[in-house]
Structures are given as C-alpha cells and as structure tokens.
C-alpha cells in the first residue's frame, strides 16, 4: 500500500467515523426527546396495561411453563370482558429456560425494550433472586413471584418485591407444630430434595421444634433432582426405625416414595409437602390405596377432589379452562395456581383505579384485605399490609382418605 493510498484510506476512515459519531449524537438526542415525551408510567396508556414475565418454557423446569400460558389466557378472558377500568391487559411473557443469567437478560428486555409497567409471577427462586436488586433499584414492582422461598417478604430491603403463595418454611412450621401437639414423642425421618426447596423445610422444622429438633429428627436423607429413584433412601430411613416420615419431594419422586414406603410394609405417619399432592401427578400413579393416610397442609383447592365438583369457585375455574385453554389439563394444580394469582393481580389493578403509577400499584398490592380467591380453601383469605408482604399466610391441614384430602382442625396461621 503506497503512502498516498494510506492517506486516502485514513481520510475516508476519519470521515466515516465522523459521520457515525454525528449519527450517534442525533440518535441519542431523538431518543432522549422520545423519553421525555411519554409522561407517566412506562407501559401504561389510556387503553393498555403492559405487564412483563419470565417463564421456563424450555429447560429443566419447563413443566411450570403452563403457568405463563394460563396467566395469558386469564388476561384474555378479562380483556374479552372489557379489561380493567377500560384498559386492556397485555402480558409479554419470555422464556428464560430457568437460567438466572437469561432471566436477567429477559427482564432487562421487558423493562428497557418492551417498556412494561411491572413484572408479574415470574417463575423460580434463583431466577427471581437474580433480578430482584435490578428491579428494586429501578423501583419496578416485582409482583407475586411464583416461588415458595421464604425470602420474598422483606419490605425493608426489597420494598418492590412480593410473593404470593405461603412459603415452604411456613408450611414446615405447621408440620412441626402439628407434631409437637399430636405426637410429641415422634421419631421423625425427613426425606428431602437437596436444594433450597428441600432445605427450607428443614429450616421451618428447626424454627418450630427448637431444642427438640435434634431429639425428634432421628435421620434425614436427601436426593438430587437428577437421581433416577429414591428407593435406597426410603430403605435407609426405614432402617432408622422412625414412626413418622416427612417427604419433601417434587411429584416425580413423591410417587416413588409413596410406593416404596407401602411396598416395604413401613407404616409411618406420612407427611407430604403440598407441592406433591396432585391426584393426577402423584396419588394416582402411586396408587390411591397406597396413599391413604397422607397428611399435608394446603391453601388451594385440589382440582381432582370429587367433592368439589359443585363448588362455585372450581366450576368457574373449569369453565375458564374449557373456553380459554382447551388443550391444557385442568387437573394440573399449576393452572389453579395461575388462575388464583392472576385473579389477585386483577384485584390489585382494579383497586388502582386511574392511578397506575408504579408506586400506587405497589401500594394497592400491599392493601388487600380479606380478599377471597375462590380457588383457595374455605377460610383462607389474602391479606397484605405495608409491613405484611405475604398474601397467603394460612394453611389447612388435611388427610387423604382414599378419594380426596379431608380437612381437619382449624385453619393454621403460618407466620
């Protein structure tokens, strides 16, 4: 390349860079102007409320993807009825594959690219943990996160984040309280999934049993979500001669536990996490007769319970499923969950009236009193307050009688 040639190239490059920088300046000015023009909350117009969500449509937790579909269907139903205070709801729901790094990216897309007003019912503990500081920094409501971890009710540190369901830890406390009262000398074994889901139950039991914990909990065994079966763990626990078994397992493993316990002739008092009490996914595959006597503490109605066939709340739910999600199994409790949390959100937005600022959305979410979700068990209500970030804090103990879970005792307050 001759010297002259080089000079020409350099000149061309300089002018090229110059024009690009000019373009950049023009663009950023236009962009800033565009920002200033839109007054009020992003995602809110006179006719629309834009809501964001991340969902594991792919990846290891894709079974939960149905929650996003049901949320979308519920908003469709609301829109068909005229929306909320004249505004239609738009749900932008993006796949994060249950990978927190992807959740960060997708949540930023929702906020910065799609311009949503707030985030609703994103699934997963670690995915939500990953975006919690970001959303709180930007003062964007992170409403009704779909996880049972205990940490979402922290209004001092994270005033923009709120859960929905009762936490696993509170559920475990209720089991602890039940054992202390009904079976104080129990020899307890715990079988748990080796992650934060499983460990939250141990923490809850410790909260309640206190200094009795080491005496009552004789043996614990854990499994990995990737293990093929839990048979050997069940056998080990039986050998420890426990008379009570607390199982903290996801549906696939719960089936194996119920079967194995029955098959080896072990007859403990069997407490099962409410995550795994679905008839279609757990009890029927395990065998209804093998499931008799299971105890759990729940808050939502079981869509499989034949006694609830004429329950008005469940009838509405079934009608909704039939019309808006005909390809999805209505007996899946994930869709009951989505139906209930979408309904709670609709209540919050209705309460907001015309003030849909982010601050007011958060304020209304923390001002729910005695709101009855028709798919929740009788006597269980949603209550929130400025310092109470737990919409559900009640659970009902129930025992499986061979056809359905039969409630017993008072509604328990889990705090």
């Amino acid at each position, binding site marked *: 390349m001759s010297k002259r040639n080089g000079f020409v190239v350099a000149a061309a490059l300089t002018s090229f860079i110059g024009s690009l920088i000019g373009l950049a300046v023009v663009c950023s000015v236009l962009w800033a102007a565009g920002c200033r023009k839109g007054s009020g909350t992003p995602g809110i117009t006179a006719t629309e409320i834009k809501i964001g969500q991340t969902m594991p*449509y792919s990846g290891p937790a894709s079974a939960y993807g149905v929650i996003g579909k049901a949320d979308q269907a519920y908003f469709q139903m609301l829109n068909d009825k005229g929306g909320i205070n004249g505004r239609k709801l738009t749900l932008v729901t*993006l*796949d994060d594959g249950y990978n*927190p*790094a992807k959740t960060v990216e997708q949540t930023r897309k929702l906020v910065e690219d799609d311009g949503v007003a707030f985030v609703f019912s994103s699934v*997963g503990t*670690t995915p939500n943990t990953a975006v919690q*500081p970001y959303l709180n920094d930007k003062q964007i409501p992170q409403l009704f996160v779909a996880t049972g971890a205990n940490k979402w009710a922290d209004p001092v540190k994270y005033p923009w984040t709120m859960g929905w369901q009762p936490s696993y830890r509170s559920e475990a406390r209720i089991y602890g309280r039940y054992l202390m009262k009904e079976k104080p000398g129990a020899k307890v074994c715990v079988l748990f999934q080796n992650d934060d889901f499983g460990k939250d139950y141990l923490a809850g039991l410790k909260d309640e049993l206190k200094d009795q914990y080491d005496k009552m909990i004789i043996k614990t065994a854990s499994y990995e979500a990737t293990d093929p079966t839990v048979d050997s763990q069940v056998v080990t626990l039986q050998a420890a001669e426990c008379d009570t078994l607390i199982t903290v397992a996801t549906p696939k493993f719960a089936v194996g536990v119920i079967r194995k316990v029955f098959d080896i002739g072990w007859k403990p008092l069997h407490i099962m996490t409410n995550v795994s009490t679905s008839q279609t996914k757990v009890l029927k595959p395990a065998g209804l007769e093998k499931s008799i006597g299971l105890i759990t503490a729940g808050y939502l109605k079981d869509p499989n319970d034949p006694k609830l066939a004429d329950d008005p709340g469940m009838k509405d739910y079934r009608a909704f499923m039939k019309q808006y999600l005909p390809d999805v199994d209505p007996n899946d409790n994930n869709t009951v969950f989505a139906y209930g949390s979408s309904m709670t959100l609709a209540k919050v937005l209705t309460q907001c009236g015309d003030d849909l600022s982010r601050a007011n959305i958060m304020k209304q979410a923390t001002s729910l009193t005695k709101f009855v979700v028709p798919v929740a068990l009788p006597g269980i209500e949603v209550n929130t307050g400025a310092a109470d970030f737990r919409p559900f804090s009640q659970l009902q103990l129930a025992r499986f009688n061979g056809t359905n879970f039969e409630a017993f005792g008072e509604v328990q307050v889990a705090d």
Partner: protein
Amino acid sequence: MASAEVPMAAPAATAGSTRRVGRASRGLAALFVVAIVLPFLVSDYYVAKLTQVVVYAIALVGLNLLTGFSGQISLGNGAFYALGAYASAILMSKVGLPYWATPPLVGAICFIVGYLFGRPAARLEGIYLALATFALAITTPQILKLDALAPWTGGNQGVQIVRRVSPIPDQISHDQWRYFFCLVVATAMFVIAWNLVRGRTGRALVALRDHSIGAGTMGISVASYKAVTFGVSAMYTGIAGALGALVAGFISPDSFEIFVSIQLLVGGVVGGIDSLPGTLFGAMFIEFVPDLAGKLSKAAPFALYGVLLIVCMVVMPGGAAGLVRSARAWHARRSLHRTRS
C-alpha cells in the same frame, strides 16, 4: 484475515495474499470502528446483549483452540465457564479485589485446573474424551451446591455481583462501561490466540489433530501439548465466565447447567470450529437465535431452534467461516478463469 489458512488458490499467491492482507486489515479496522461506535447507537439493553456476544466469543476461542485446532472434543467447557465465574465472584466478595483485577487471576486459576484435568484426560481420544468432559459439566452445578462450599459459593442462593461499575455513569452508562471493559479484554485475548495459532504452536496443534501418531514421530510431545491446550482453553473459557458473571450481575448453580456447554459447542460449530473470526458469528448465533425462536414459538422454542440449527448446517457445513472460505475460493477460481480466457 484468512491469510494463515494456507490450502488456498496456489497461483497468484504473492499478489493475491498481499491484496488479501490489505482487505483483511481494512475489514478489521471497519469492525473495530463498528464495535466502538455501536454501543452509543443502541439502548443499554442491547449494549448488554452485545457485551454477552463479546463474552461468548472469548469462550468460543477457547473451545476452538481445543476442539478445532487440537482436535479434542469437549462437552464440558461450561464447567470452566462456571469455574471462572465463581473464581471471579469469590475474589471480589471474599478477597475484596475490584472487578477489573480479577480476569488475569481467574485466567491463571483456570489454566492450572484445565491443565490438571487435561493431563489424564489427554489419554482419552475422540468421543471418550467427550464423555469425560461431559461428566465434568454435569457434576459442576452439584458441586457448586455442596454445603461445605456454601460459605464461598453461596450454595443455591447464588452470589450477587457488583453492578455499578462506571465511574462516570452520567457520561458512560454502566452497561457501556462493561461493554468496553469486555471489549478490551477480548481484543487482548484474540491477539494472543492469533499469535498462538499462527506460529509453531498452532502448527503443532493442527498436526496433533490430523494425525497424533505422526505428530509424535515428528517430535511433538503429544501428552503435554494436549494438556497445555486444555489449560489454555480453560483459561479462555474461565475469563469469559468471569466477564459473563459481570454482565449478568448474578450467578448461581442454575446458571451453569449442562446446556451452557452444549451451547458453546453449537456456537463453535456454527461459527466454524477451526476459525478465530468465526467465533464472532458463533457468539451472535447463541446469543440471538434462542430469542428469535422464543419469539416465534412459545410452545416449542427448542424445536424451532433445532430447525434453525439444521438449516445453518445444511447451508454452511463448515460453519460461517467455512462459507466465507468457499466463497473466496469460488471467487478466486472465477477470476483465475477470467484472466486465462
């Protein structure tokens, strides 16, 4: 840029190659200008995505050195990506280092771990090595969850990483700052890789890949070259992991499931497994195509991703770099033909 890729039109070698070098350097200059100006043209969200592309490109260079140049298939580079991310997070939170000081240390740690893994693993060939590395990738998330390590790794809860990095946030946003930081690291890493594959080492690696016994007879120490390549690959992937953690602002065992390793392999192959410039295309593929698939189908995003992948492989069997190479060869043949007639 492809001047080192020898098996090309032999006639008109001298004139052609100088012209190609000229074209390549001009292309490189243009790429650099675009890379510098782009973050001022798009929103912070896209700046973050571009940063992730740069990060993946570094990781893919690591994979290409290992798989493309020395011929060792790895399904486990995600493990080194995780190691780099966690090493950097721990150096920041426990040792108190600033984020910009961690990459060299992380690189050193990952090199040592990679070398130690590569030493015995180098005895394995082809798919057996692939399985050994696969095992590494599967166990990583479970090791990260161990209670014994929880004080450092945060267990399932993960670790939050510093997000405010720009000293002048009003002029240069945090995202832009992260982008330029990653770009500087990436440029340095590319230059190192470029020098590595162009010289003696690069030729030794290719010889290993093409015929390891032959390479041994020629005096190349097969075992140590393979192990060192493993170390270098781990170093690149680990540094990418450290930068990736910085981009995400949060890491946890769920961030490093086996899929990360698979994704890296996809990026490597789509870009062209034995090409350095190809890594940029591969990185863009793994960053943007899943989004595209997710946008088009909620029900089965991965089915669509698979289809796009197959289309890519049918249209350009040698990856993006292979496509460019064959286009150039075609062009050279045509101009040769024209000068003759």
